[in-house]
């Protein structure tokens, strides 16, 4: 997505959260905040590299072939950190953002 496209999503999320939601109550406010969250999340995800599914790796982990594999753990942790940030930026500390989000 272009920077302009990302900016559209950012601005739409801000409008929903900061301008519209405070004027609403109950279900309408809840759904507006959900929508704001979804738009912001899609914006964060649009800036990420897609990660391929890996069914063979799943089977190998279950079979114990990667027990104690520090390099794999580091790779899985970095991938999970990026997805956790997409879902909820507050799930990462400042240090974790610095460590995992440089190369997204």
């Amino acid at each position: 997505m272009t920077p302009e496209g990302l900016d559209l999503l950012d601005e739409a999320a801000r409008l929903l959260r900061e301008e519209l939601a405070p004027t609403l109550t109950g279900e309408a406010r809840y759904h507006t905040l959900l929508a704001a969250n979804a738009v912001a999340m899609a914006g964060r995800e649009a800036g990420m590299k897609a990660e391929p599914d890996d069914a063979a790796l799943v089977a190998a982990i279950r079979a114990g072939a990667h027990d104690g594999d520090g390099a794999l753990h580091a790779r899985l942790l970095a991938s999970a950190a990026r997805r956790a940030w997409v879902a909820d930026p507050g799930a990462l500390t400042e240090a974790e953002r610095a460590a995992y989000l440089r190369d997204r």
Partner: protein
Amino acid sequence: MSGFSQAPGFVCWLADALGVEAVTVEAASKLSGGAIQENWRLDVVADGTPRALVLRRDAAATIGASHSRRDEFSLFAAAWEAGVRVPRPLAFCDERQAGGPFALVEHVAGTGYGPKVVRDAALGGDRAALGRELGRQLARIHAMDAPGFLGARPADPAMAEIAELRGWLDAMGAARPGLEWALRTCERSAPAPDTVALCHRDYRTGNFLVDGEGLTAILDWEFAGWSDPMADIGWFCAECWRFSRPDLEGGGVCARGDFYAGYEGESGRTVDPAQVAWWERMAHLRWAVVALQQGRRHASGEERSLALALTGRIADTLEFSALKEARP
């Protein structure tokens, strides 16, 4: 949607079920909550006496482990017999012409929404007493005679739990190496099999009702089944169900010690903190897989819902924290 409650077949069935001559349904309203069931509050007049009832039936789409409505009703009846605080079970209907299958129970007043129960100090009465009562109630559940439909007891509940979660991931076609790593780490440190009992398997803040005085009902029995009693304790204490009070390790409502004290006093069983810690790690993985299932309900078109879609993303934050705790 509420049309069923005025259908002659239903009204006829209701009079029989309540053992009355005449009944009228004055109001039917859908209660909030319940991704799996629909809950309807029915205000009826039965032989001149107003009564509040709750009718539970399946929502449009249901998740893997939930029992049929009939099994759930028999579980409710067993819990009622065992002195567990559940809404009084009244009758079960599986006849299509009355709008079945559904279960009918007495309405119990109270607030259940987890974040509100945790946040609102006016609810639940004295919180230490509430914690002890929740512990006592759980001990009574673990002492219940299990209805026949539960099948054979697993020899090793910890391994059965891991196998179940892997099965759910496979059924979704979800390749999640991060969750698999955390599951494998749990598998390698699993506690040896000990007691196996009837467990609630969704015993947490959000699934019981409180009023201003204290506990009024334990709800959401659809996942009940055989497991290690420590699994329920770990699920109750897991951080994901403490909402805005992660410091209150007893489900965001009390100190962990209050909950344990009530449980130990009623059951005569000692809570092993190391085993509970293992089940708390499993609780986060279970919630991650259930969150993925909910996300799939939206993505598959079974039930389009932005709330379900966003719930699916919770799996990513849970996977990240699980991997931090599962370093090689």
